[in-house]
C-alpha cells in the first residue's frame, strides 16, 4: 500500500498534485517529440526526393492504428468517468481495454515494420526511413511505458485504491495519442 507524505496531500494551487505533475511531464515530452519532429520536417522540406521513399509507407495500416489509438483514448475517458463515480473495478475494465488497444497498436506496428524491413526498408535505408523508425520508435516506447504504468494503476483500481491515478494515466495516454495524430500525417499521408 502506498504511503503518502503530507506534501502529497496538499494543493496550494487548487489542483491535485498528481494531475499537476503529469502536466509538467507532458511539457518535457512535448519538447522531446517536438525536437524529433521539427528536425524531420526541416529535413523533409530540404529533401523533396524523400517523397519517393515515403510512398512506401502503408497508409491503411497507419489509419487503422490511428483508429485503434483514438478508440483506446475513448476507453481511457470512460475509465476516468468510472473512477470519478468511485467504481474502481469498472474503471479497471476500461483501463484494460485501453491497454488492449495499445497492444493491438504495437502488434500491428510489429507486423508493419517486419514487412517493411524484409522489403529492404531498414533504418539505414536513408534519411526518410531513419526518421520514420526513430520517431515512431520513440513513440512506441512511450506507448509501451504507458501500458505498463496503466496495468499498475488498473491493479490498484480493481481494489478501489488510488482512483485519482486513473485520470492521470489517462492524461498521459491522450498525449501519446496526440503525438501519433501528428506522426500519422507526417509519416504516412505526406507523400
Amino acid at each position, binding site marked *: 500500500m502506498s*504511503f*503518502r*507524505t*503530507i*506534501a*502529497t*496531500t*496538499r*494543493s*496550494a*494551487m*487548487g*489542483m*491535485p*498534485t498528481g*494531475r*499537476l*505533475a503529469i502536466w*509538467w*511531464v507532458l*511539457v*518535457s*515530452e*512535448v*519538447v*522531446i*517529440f*517536438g*525536437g*524529433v519532429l*521539427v*528536425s524531420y520536417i526541416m*529535413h523533409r522540406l530540404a*529533401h523533396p526526393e524523400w517523397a519517393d521513399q515515403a510512398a512506401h509507407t502503408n497508409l491503411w495500416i497507419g489509419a487503422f492504428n490511428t483508429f485503434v489509438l483514438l478508440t483506446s483514448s475513448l476507453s481511457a475517458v470512460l475509465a476516468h468517468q468510472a473512477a*470519478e463515480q468511485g467504481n474502481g473495478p469498472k474503471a479497471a475494465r476500461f483501463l484494460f481495454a485501453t491497454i488492449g488497444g495499445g497492444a493491438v497498436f504495437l502488434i500491428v506496428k510489429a507486423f508493419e515494420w517486419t514487412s517493411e524491413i524484409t522489403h529492404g526498408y531498414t*533504418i*539505414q535505408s*536513408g*534519411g526518410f526511413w*531513419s*526518421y520514420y523508425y*526513430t520517431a515512431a520508435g*520513440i513513440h512506441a516506447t512511450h506507448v509501451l511505458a504507458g501500458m505498463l504504468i496503466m496495468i499498475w494503476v488498473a491493479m490498484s483500481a480493481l481494489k478501489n485504491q488510488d*482512483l*485519482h491515478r486513473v*485520470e492521470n494515466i489517462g492524461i498521459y495516454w491522450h498525449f501519446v495519442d496526440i503525438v501519433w495524430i501528428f506522426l500519422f500525417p507526417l509519416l504516412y499521408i505526406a507523400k
Partner: protein
Amino acid sequence: MATTHPAHAVESHGHGHEKQSFFKKYLWSTDHKIIGFQYMFTGMAMALIGAFFAYVFRMQMAYPGEAVPGFGVVSPQEYNALVTNHGTIMVFWVAMPVLLAGFGNFLIPLMCGCDDMVFPRINRLSYQIFFLSTVVILASLFVQGGGFGGAWTAYPPLSSVSEYNLTKIGATMWVIAVALEFVAFLLGGINFITTAMNSRAPGMKAFDLPVVVWMIVIASIMFMASVGPLIAGAVMLLFDQTLGTGFYNPTRGGDPILWQHLFWFFGHPEVYVVLLPALGIVAEVMSVFSRKKLFGYRLIIYTVIATAVLSFFVWAHHQFIAGIDPRMANVFTVTTVIISVPIAETCFLYMATLYGGSIRFTTPMLWALAFLAEFLIGGVTGIYLGSSGADIYLHDTYFVVAHFHYTFVPIAILAVFAGIAYWFPKMFGKMMNETLGKIHFWGTVIPFNLIFIPLFFLGAAGDHRRIFDYTHFPDLATPELQAMRIFATLSLVVMLLFQFVFLYNFVHSLIRGRKAERNPWKANTLEWTTESPAPHGNWKEMPTVYRGPYEYSVPGRPQDYWPQNEPS
C-alpha cells in the same frame, strides 16, 4: 477527485517508523534530505575526479611531453578524453546534482514547511537513475579505446563515426550516460516543481517562498523545456553510432549542423539552469548576513524569468562561424547582447540588498560576495563573444574558456561553498570551523583568478582550445606565452591543494564539530525552525506561515529577524 485541503492539526506523516537498517535509512531512503545528500556527495566526489583531470591536462600544457605526477605521460588521445570528460563531468555530474538536486532536494520541502517531496519514491528513483549514469560515465573511461574524446559538445561526425573518434565504446557509453542523467533530472524536476507549487505551508503564498526555491523551480522548468530536443538528438546520435543511420553524417544524407542546433538549444538554457540555484543561494546568504530584507524580491523573480525566457533565443551564438547562414548570426548577436540587460538588473538588485545593511563577513557571506564580484567578470566577458564580429576571432580560443570559467566557477564552486557553509548546521547538526573556512576561501578565490586571467590573454594571443601541445605552433611557442601557461597551471595546483582544507574541515566538523543550535544564523526561513539536524519528517507539527522570508531589521521590533512561522 476532490482537492484535499488539510486542516494542519490532523496532518500526519503517512507511515510508521520502525527502526531502520543502515541500508534502508541511508541507501534506500525516500527522505528528501537523504536523497539530497546522496546527490551532493556524489557530485562532490565527481568534482574531485573532474578536478584531477584538469590538473593532468594543465600539467601537460605547462610541461608538454613530461610525465605528470600521479598520471604519467599524457598521449593526445588521453588528452582529448581528459578535456572531454572534465567538461562533461563538471557540468552534468557536479553542477547539476549539487546545485539543483542536492540543494533542491534538501531545501524545498523544508522551506515550504512540509514533511517531504510530493513523490518520494520517484525521488529515490531519480537518484538511482542518476547513480547509474555516474557508473556509466566512469566506466566509459576504462573500456577499450578509452573515454570519449570529442569534447563535451560531441559534434558529429567525429562523435558519431568510430573510425573518426577511435573510441567506439567510450563514445556510445558517453551518450548513454548523458541521456540517463537527463532522465534522472526530468524525474527530479517533477518533484521540485509540484512540491513548491502545491505543498506550501498554510498561509504561505507563492511570494512568501524564499527566492532559492523560486530559482530551483524556474531552473527545473527551463530544464524540462530545453532538454527534449537534445534527448531526441541523443537518440539520433546513438543510432548513428550503433545502427549506421545517417542523421548527422553527410555521406549518408545527414547534416552535422543539426546536432549543433539540438545541442545548443539545450546547452544555452542549461547554463542558466545551473546559474539560477546559485543565484538563489547567494540571495539567501546575503540577506541573512546583512540582516536586511532582500531588495526587490519580485523584481528579482521577474528579471530572472525574463533572462530565462531570453536564454532560449540565444543559442546560435555558439555557432556564429559554424556554417550557419551568416544573416542568422545578426539575430543572435542582438538577443545575446540584450540578455545583459535583465542579468545586470539582477546583479544591481543584489547589490541594493547590501545597501544599508549590517554586513557580517562570515564564511558563507564571503563566498556569496565573491560570487557577485567574480560572476561579474564572467558576465562582461560574454559580451565579447556575443558580438559576432569579435567572435570570429575569439571563438574556440582560451578567451572562451576563461569566460565560461568565470561564470561556472562562481556558480558551481563559490555559490556551492556558500550554501554548504550556510546550511551545514541544519544538514548535519554541527558547526563548521570558521577559521578553516576563511583559509579555504582565500586559498580558493585568489588562485582562481590567477588561473584564468592569464587565459584571457592567452586566448586573445591565439591559443586555441583542446590543443594538447603548443610547441607545434611557432607563433604560440614563445617563452612569454608558455610562462603564462605555467603560471596558470601552478595556480591551479595551489587552488587544488587548498581544497584539502575544506575536506578536512567538512569531515572533522561532521565528527567533532561544535553542536549546532536550531537557528545559529538567526534566519527567518522555515528550515531554521526545526532541530539541527533536521529530523525525518521535518517537524512533529507542520508550521503555518504568516509573512515573507526576508523581514530582517524591521523597525520597532526587539530582534532583527522575524521568522516566517511566528504569529506576530
